[in-house]
């Protein structure tokens, strides 16, 4: 059997660090420095654009634009990897579905259009949400008149995330050490796979109980520090959104994006490709 080594990537610890890096935009990037409302505006622009056309050239151009945005936003390997894997599986699935149900290449192309639209949407989501740390996102939601509870839930959810991942890692480790490992790996490692899937499912019971126990303090502390008060009194909201500034940089990014989207449509109009 091969010797064990310390894994720096593809371990639970790595996933935790990646999530933190993603959530708190520690990699920086173009959009991280922008006003969060502008980022949400930018996102809406990019997210709506692909749905207004059936022109495959336009969609391809928009896809390239999305990819550029992802590069500028410095999206990390975990999220990007998940995206690529997701898109890859989607394509394989399309090909299989088309063949199995007696379709041909035209069916694939038809489904490809939807996939491309979803792809542009995903790229825009990646770029936008990797650049918005939870505080900015929560402030932007407040500014856009979302209920304070929703805005808080966003930031608290992020706060809980590293805790949950850690909790998960500990519980899985407990099972790994105390549950007997499968006798052999089995064909293609199916026994090991079943073992891990079972552990993952069983991990939820202790995680939920441990988390539920700690939340009681959190709720009391929220009450004592005026969380409920702030949902009634508007002054807290005024202070929170008072720090948001829509600057020339935000305007410039929005203008350039609008122009780029227009260009995509222009390219599409010049060399149009429609399905079947």
């Amino acid at each position, binding site marked *: 059997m091969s010797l064990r080594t*310390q894994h720096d990537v593809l371990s639970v610890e790595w996933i935790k660090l990646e999530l933190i890096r993603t959530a708190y935009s520690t990699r920086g990037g173009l959009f991280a420095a922008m006003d969060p409302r502008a980022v949400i505006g930018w996102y809406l622009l990019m997210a709506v654009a692909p749905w207004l056309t059936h022109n495959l050239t336009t969609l391809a151009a928009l896809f390239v634009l999305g990819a550029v945005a992802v590069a500028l936003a410095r999206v990390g390997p975990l999220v990007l990897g998940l995206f690529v894997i997701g898109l890859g599986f989607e394509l394989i699935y399309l090909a299989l579905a088309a063949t199995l149900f007696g379709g041909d290449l035209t069916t694939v192309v038809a489904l490809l259009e939807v996939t491309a639209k979803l792809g542009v949407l995903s790229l825009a989501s990646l770029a936008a949400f990797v650049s918005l740390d939870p505080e900015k996102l929560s402030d932007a939601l407040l500014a856009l008149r979302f209920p304070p509870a929703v805005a808080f839930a966003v930031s*608290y959810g992020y706060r809980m995330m*590293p805790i949950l991942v850690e909790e998960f890692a500990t519980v899985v480790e407990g099972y790994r*050490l105390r*549950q007997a490992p499968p006798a052999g790996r089995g064909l293609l490692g199916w026994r090991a796979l079943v073992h891990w899937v079972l552990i993952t499912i069983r991990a939820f019971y202790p995680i939920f109980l*441990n988390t539920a126990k700690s939340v009681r303090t959190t709720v009391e*502390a929220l009450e004592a520090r*005026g969380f409920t008060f*702030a949902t009634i009194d508007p002054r807290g909201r005024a202070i929170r959104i008072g720090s948001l500034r829509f600057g020339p940089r935000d305007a410039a990014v929005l203008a350039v994006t609008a122009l780029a989207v227009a260009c995509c449509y222009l390219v599409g109009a010049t060399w149009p490709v429609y399905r079947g």
Partner: protein
Amino acid sequence: MSGGIPPAGPVIEATALSFRYPGAGSDTLRDVDVRIERGDFVAVVGGNGSGKTTLCKTFNGLVPHYWSGEFAGEVRVGGVDTWESSVAELSSVVGYVYQDFQNQLVRPTVRDEVAFGPVNFGLADHAERTAEALRMVGIEHLADRFVWQLSGGQAHLVALASVLALRPEVVVVDEPVAELDPAAAVEIYERLTDLNRDHGITVVTIEHHAEFVARYARSVLLMSDGAPVWHLPTAQALGRAGELARHGIPAPQVVDGLRRIGVTGVPLSVADAATLVRADQDGGVVRRAAPRADVPDDPAREPDRRAVAVAREVGHGFRDVGGGLRPVIDDLSVTLREGDRVALVGGNGAGKTTLMRLLAGIHVPRVGTVELDGVDTRTQRAGRLSERAAYLAQQPERMFLKASVREDVALFPAGRHVPDVDALVDRILDRVRLTEHADRDGRTLSGGQQRRATLAIGLAMRPALLLLDEPTASLDVSSRDDVIAMLADLAEDIACTVVATHDMHLVAEWATRVLVLDGGRVVADTTPRVLFAEPDVLAPAHLVPPQITQLGLELGLDPLPLTVEEFAAHYAPAPLGALT
């Protein structure tokens, strides 16, 4: 402002207060009358279930506004009747820091966390209040950190700053010592003392440890069975050592030690105690015993005992958020032998937990080798190595995977097809005295019971090497003594036990060998008695010997006493009449 006479009038006054939690069968608080003067530093003491925490929750209105049980009587805070007020309003008078303060932190960064209260209340000067609160507890340098990057002590200070940002007159701190290492606990108490002295803030702490009460509190409120027994100035309160001990608060070691040798007076610190002993020695009240040959010496350490675990030139580290490699263990070599009772000590971040996890084979080192029972940990999976070494995590809840203690204990032996699992599990549960709680979920047990349950889980794994991470942390004194006694009993089943700890009582009373870690290296490998006599090693590792040992050092006793009994043995029996 000086700490002299506080301004007139009580800041908190409870009259004929009773409270019953919804659905509970009896009152948690019964007919309580309490006055807390402005500027006081009150330690609320009492056994588990005496109503300490519930009483403190009436001060900021959580009882009865959040916990709406049956409430009778009156609580006035800063002159306001809490029944007429609300939790939000009262939070600008009373700040509350929880025992599990980590759960109190709800924002990602320290600055946000501290600003959370003032911003929610829409206070125009929220920025100044935040800066002021950070300054008051001395954590300006942490302002931009993420809360999950903080050490326990830092997180506690953040929780404290976040309630101070509302400029309360009273701060309630629930058992700060429980979740913190001693150095961090001292830091918290020093800050609270500053707040009390320089800013006139009334401080109320819930506390089990008489040493902290003696050193910092001005008055002591003893609770029992939902009602105050008495509320006295600290010196007077500690004079009632027997009564405190009956309520689960054993006297500080120096108080106990002096009583044993017949010195009168209640010392509040080691220096006090030394002065009292010297005075009585000069006055002929006590005298030193003749040097004794039979003082228990540390067991001889023949080097030929079986090696249970060997680390050779081990180096290890972890990736941080920035992607850099943070070294934790650095070129460390150590051999643990059969019969060793090893205490692993050192400040936070010294590498204690990492070393234990490497020894247990949960991680493999980046550099060097770890051999467990003669097996290189790189050659076997962690799930196999756990048959040789068991690691018990610091938080007991993290070890509870199943719905009952019995299932948790049986998980390992049942999976390994150990013959007669049921009998084994019964025997172990009996040994840790949990038979009657065996069918409960481990999470619902008390702190001491949870520790014993994890110990049972470890014993059921029947390892050669047992590693425990802070087994006495957050335990009250009697549960702690319980765990220490159980550890002392393990020798017949476990070849070698390693305990990572900040608890110097545990080191003094249990260990035969101490490894001091600093910066991932072993800076001392010795016996407790030798270690406690070496200030050069103690100081950089933030170690403080037990009070009785400090007193022995102060008085120049040789051999250095590790327990109160050893201290008393240095003095001749008190002549009749010296005891009052």
